Structure formats: C-alpha cells, structure tokens
C-alpha cells in the first residue's frame, strides 16, 4: 500500500511550514519570510530524490547564525522522526476525532513535540499557551534576578545618567562646520558660491570628526561575584542605555558579548535574555581564558587609545594565571586606560593578594573598589 508515501508527499509544504515553526520554538528567528525562503529553496533544487539534499537545502535556507548551523541537523532529525511516528500512528488509529483535546505534557523542559502534531491539526491556540508557559518556566529555572529593589534602581539610574552625561560632553564635537581654516569643505563651498555664479569667494571648512570615547565593560558573573551581581547588572544595563559607544561583555568560564541583550528597551526582558543565554552564569572563573578570547576576537576593533576598559571582578581565578597576565598586558598596551573595579577592595583590610589579581596588577591604570553606588561616583571622575 503506498498510501503513507502519498500522504507525505502531498503534505510536504505543510510539513516544511510546521518545521519552520518548530525551529521558531527552538529559538530560531523564523517568520513568514523564512518559511517562503525554505519553500522556494526546495522548489529551486527540485527534482531531488535524496533526503540529504533536502536537509542540506533547508539548512542553507534557514540557519542564520553559527550556533544555528550547528544545532540544525539535530533538530531536523528530531522533527522528522517525530513526524514519521505521528503519521504512522495516525494511519493505525484512523483520523483523530474532531475536537479531541490533547493534554500538554507536564513538567516538560523542552517545547513538547506535541505541538507539532497540534500544528498539523491546526490547533494553534494551545501552541501559544504552551510556548508562554515554557518561557516562564525557563526564566524561573535560571537565576532569579527579579528581586531588584525599586529604590536602588532609581539611585542607580540617576548616577549612571550623570556618568553618561560626563561622557557625552566629551564627544559632543562631531564633524561640523568650523570658522577656522582647517579643512576645506568643498561640497558646501561649492553650494554657497553657486549663488555668486561660481566664483569662489567664500570658503567653507569643517573640522575633522573627533573619535568618540569607546567604553568596554568586562563583567565577572562567576559564583564568587554573586553577591554583587544585581548591582552589576543594573550598572551594565544603565550605562548601556545611557551611552551609545559601549560594548559589554560578561564572563565566568567563557566570554559572552552582552551588548545586544542589554539593548532591550525593557529591563526585565534584558535580564531574562541574559540569564537564559550566558553560559556558566554563577559558575567557575577563568579570567585568563576569557580575556584571551576578548583580546583575540574583539580587541582589534574595540581597543585604541580612546578606549576605556572597565573590568569588574574580584580577581578570583581558577584558570591559567599566566595567561591572565599575558592577556592583561595586551589589553593594556592597546587601550587608553584600564580600570579594574574590585568589590572586595571596598573593605579596609583588603590587599590584592590573589594570584589572579597579582598577575593583572601591573597592567591596571586605576584600581578601585566597586561594591556600591558610592564607588561609582569615584569612577565618574576617572572617566573624564
């Protein structure tokens, strides 16, 4: 009987669309445009008889980041395997009764594959409910950031706004008209003098653009920093939203670029995105490896003599301390200024004795406490 085959062929389009939705659940940004891409891509490679070609084609059409490229094959297999099962059982049991409700799996950590079947049956409402439940669950299972006191937030906001203003004043001179003869602005000179029949009587100049001060924030989010983490996050978020030229990275055992997550307009959203995505939050610390990764992947673009690098860490390092020193040296060579804020340094008795701190010390321009709002005021002066 070739009924299953026919069934699968005629529903190919529906399946591809359902697969796209499955991917969306798995965190892919797949909208109608991508669904159309996928279908057109399949159309373009037709006729194809091998399953591999189809997989390759869908991957090329739908994966849009490095990470996605790596998870795609597994998701693909997972989806079609589940679908095969669904189709087989459908044939066995006959068509499902109309209006039949399926209970969502309880406590499922992953978006349940039930959803796919629901999609196939056109039950989208349940899908949405389940997806919402899923994301709420996820946020809770990660670190709880939601306990930030409103008063603290407000204080922080004001302080950060002040810091940002101080920074903004420094970069207010962009390329603009200048009365002094510096560099001839031909475009405006011509425009102005056209009125006089093209005789160049009045020359226009501009000042060269000034480099804006770039800030790079490297924040330690490992276990030993837990006490300060809410302060840290507020600080990162506030500075990011108040000042444009800033790149924020967080690290524990590896480096993660948090700039995009922090750019969310809504603070809560930024938090959940961060806690969901950062690998090894509250984990061990490998500062050396993280900084090495920074100097390898980002230093070229981010560091120049206009850059201020702010590191927030307690210097407890379980990784390679020699590598930490080496990376700090490189960062120090390239950056304009390196500031290390250490929350432990707030206590009177503190001496930077940890190995990590010792290794990094020679390459720090400003070493200061960074445990409360007070210490940030000191930072404000350093940024000038």
């Amino acid at each position, binding site marked *: 009987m070739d009924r299953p085959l026919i069934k699968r062929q005629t529903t190919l389009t529906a399946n591809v669309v359902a697969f796209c939705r499955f991917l969306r659940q798995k965190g892919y*940004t797949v*909208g109608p*445009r*991508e669904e159309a*891409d996928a279908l*057109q*891509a399949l159309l*373009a*490679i*037709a*006729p*194809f*008889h*091998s399953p*591999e*070609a189809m997989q*390759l*084609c869908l*991957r*090329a*059409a739908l*994966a*849009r*980041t*490095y990470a*996605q*490229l790596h998870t795609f094959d597994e998701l693909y297999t997972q989806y079609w395997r589940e679908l095969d099962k669904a189709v087989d059982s459908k044939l066995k049991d006959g068509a499902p009764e109309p209006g039949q409700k399926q209970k969502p799996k309880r406590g499922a950590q992953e978006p349940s594959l039930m959803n796919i079947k629901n999609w196939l049956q056109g039950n989208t409402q349940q899908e949405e409910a389940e997806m919402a439940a899923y994301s709420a669950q996820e946020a809770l299972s990660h670190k709880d950031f939601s306990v930030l006191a409103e008063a603290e937030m407000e204080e922080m906001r004001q302080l950060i706004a002040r810091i940002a203003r101080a920074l903004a004043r420094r970069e207010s001179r962009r390329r603009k008209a200048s009365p002094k003869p510096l560099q001839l602005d*031909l*475009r405006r000179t*011509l425009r102005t003098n*056209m*009125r006089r*029949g*093209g005789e*160049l009587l009045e020359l226009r100049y501009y000042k060269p*653009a000034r480099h804006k001060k770039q800030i790079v924030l490297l924040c330690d989010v490992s276990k030993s920093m837990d006490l300060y983490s809410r302060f840290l996050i507020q600080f990162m978020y506030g500075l990011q939203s108040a000042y444009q030229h800033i790149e924020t990275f967080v690290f524990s055992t590896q480096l993660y*670029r948090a*700039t*995009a997550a922090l750019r969310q307009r809504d603070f809560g959203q930024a938090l959940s995105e961060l806690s969901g995505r950062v690998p090894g939050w509250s984990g061990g610390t490998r500062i050396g490896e993280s900084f*090495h990764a920074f100097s*390898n*992947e*980002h230093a*070229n*673009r981010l560091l120049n003599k206009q850059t201020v690098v702010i590191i927030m860490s307690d210097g407890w390092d379980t990784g390679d301390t020699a*590598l930490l020193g080496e990376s700090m040296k490189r960062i120090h060579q390239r950056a304009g200024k390196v500031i290390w804020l250490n929350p432990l340094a707030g206590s009177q008795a503190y001496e930077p004795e940890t190995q990590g701190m010792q290794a990094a010390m020679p390459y720090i321009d400003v070493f200061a406490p960074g445990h409360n709002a007070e210490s940030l005021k000191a930072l404000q002066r350093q940024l000038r």
Partner: protein
Amino acid sequence: MMENKELEEIRHMLREQGYITEPSIVMSVFLAKALKKPLLIEGPAGVGKTEIAKVMSRALDTDLIRLQCYEGLDATHAIYEWNYQQQLLHLKLEEQSDKSLEEREQNIFSERFLLKRPLLQAITHHRAPVLLIDEIDRADEEFESFLLEILSDWQVSIPEIGTIKATHIPQVIVTSNRVRELSEALRRRCLYLYVSYPEFEKELQIVRGKVPGIDQKLGEQICRFMQEVRQMRLEKIPGVAETLDWAMALSALHIDHLDKEIVESTLGIVLKDWQDIRQASLSLTELLEKVGAISKFENL
C-alpha cells in the same frame, strides 16, 4: 547525490575554478543565486571567504565589484561623491558663456561629475555583477543599517539628481570575520554560510591543486603541521593562504620533507605574530612528532 542540473553545474563551475567544494558551500551558492538573496559568509580569516565571491563572478561570467569595509566607512566612500575638482574646473571654463545660473548648476550636478563608489556602481552596472561587501564587521553599525536600506530598496537617492534605481539587482556576497555581532535584521535578509578551516584531506587537495609540483610527502606533512598549529593557543591562527604560501616556498626550494631546521627558518611564512612564532618554536619538537616528521627516538 544531487540530481538538480543547475546545482551540478554550479558544483562543476566551482570545481573548475580551482575551488575545492563542500556540499554546503555548493548549496548555499546555488540557493543565493536561485532565490536572489544576499549570501552572508562568516568564518575565521584566511579560509577563502572572499575567494567564493571571486569564483562566483567568474562562474557567472560577470564583473566583481568589491567594497572593502573599514571603521568609519561612510556614504561618500561607499555610494557616491561629487568630483569637486572637475566641477570647479568646469565652472571656470563656463565663466564666459552666457548660460544662466540654473543651467550651470544643473550642468555641474549631473552624472558626468558623479564619482560612483562600489554600491552605486553595482546597481547601475550594465549587467548584474557580483557585489562583494568584504568584512562588514569592520564597518560600524550605522553603516550596516544603511546597507540594509539599499539591499531592500535597490535604489539610491542623491539630493542634486534624484533617485537612481537599480538597472540590475546584483548578486550580493557579504563576508564577516565575526569581530562583531551583526544585526538580526541583516542576518534575516541574507542566507548564511559558515566556512571554517579545512579538514586535513580538503586542505591537501587545495595544496595539490594550487601547487601542482609539490612533493607528495611534503604536502601531507605541511597540511598535518597546519592542523596541529591551529590547535595551539595563538594570537593569529594561520589560514589556508598561509598554508599555500608555505607550500609554494618550500616547493620552490625543492624540499621534500619537513625537519626542525627547515621549519624554524621558514616559520615566519606561517605565523605572523612574534609571540606566536616564539611559542611554536618552543614546542617545535613536539609538533613535528605529532606530524610524524621526526620520530621520538631520533634525537636520543
């Protein structure tokens, strides 16, 4: 196995142009062409991302227009600029004519005095070219959004002239070394391809293809050495370009195997950072043992 004729054709063309191809590269290049979508290629430096664009333009038998991105890249370098010198000269020459002011103005702000930069060139080319936007991650985010606008509208507006619409839509290839995260919007507009360092077999094929006269054993040793070196914690990991340079150099010296002395004296071709060279020199014996160029007992 792929049966699509055009797909086979592209594979064939890519291979013919000396590009060793993986199925994923063939598929992406084919789909970019079939769906008329830009192709975003990411991967470390020196794996031949730019090469794909060059091969594609040769394969499609069309011109390659290249825009190299850098920090501070702006419209006057990417799209158009007026040729001020010529405009001034023209004004001087026209001084004695009895043309009205408006006429003169119209004259000097015409296409004749327009310097077309790569993006404008690409959309006004006489046939659809391949437009290579190289290392987009070096340009700043403002430029990226600016590029997005052109990629979706395919037109450029110049205040003095008006809107210039694309005569042909170019095949766009965007490359990035992943120095910076690219915006979601740009990613969604493009198909995505990641090219990494080649595996041993593939690299060997490339070496044999580009350095035909190379000794068989030497080629293998070089490629194995490169695989090992890339495992080290280096400042600048060498790409395929370095492998080829090295292979060519050693082949030209009529060397047929690697040994410590040869590697030491030519390491500068492979590694471009002083500290990397020092690091590799220190562990050279170990490296060569792994490569199989020297045996553990040889130096006893």
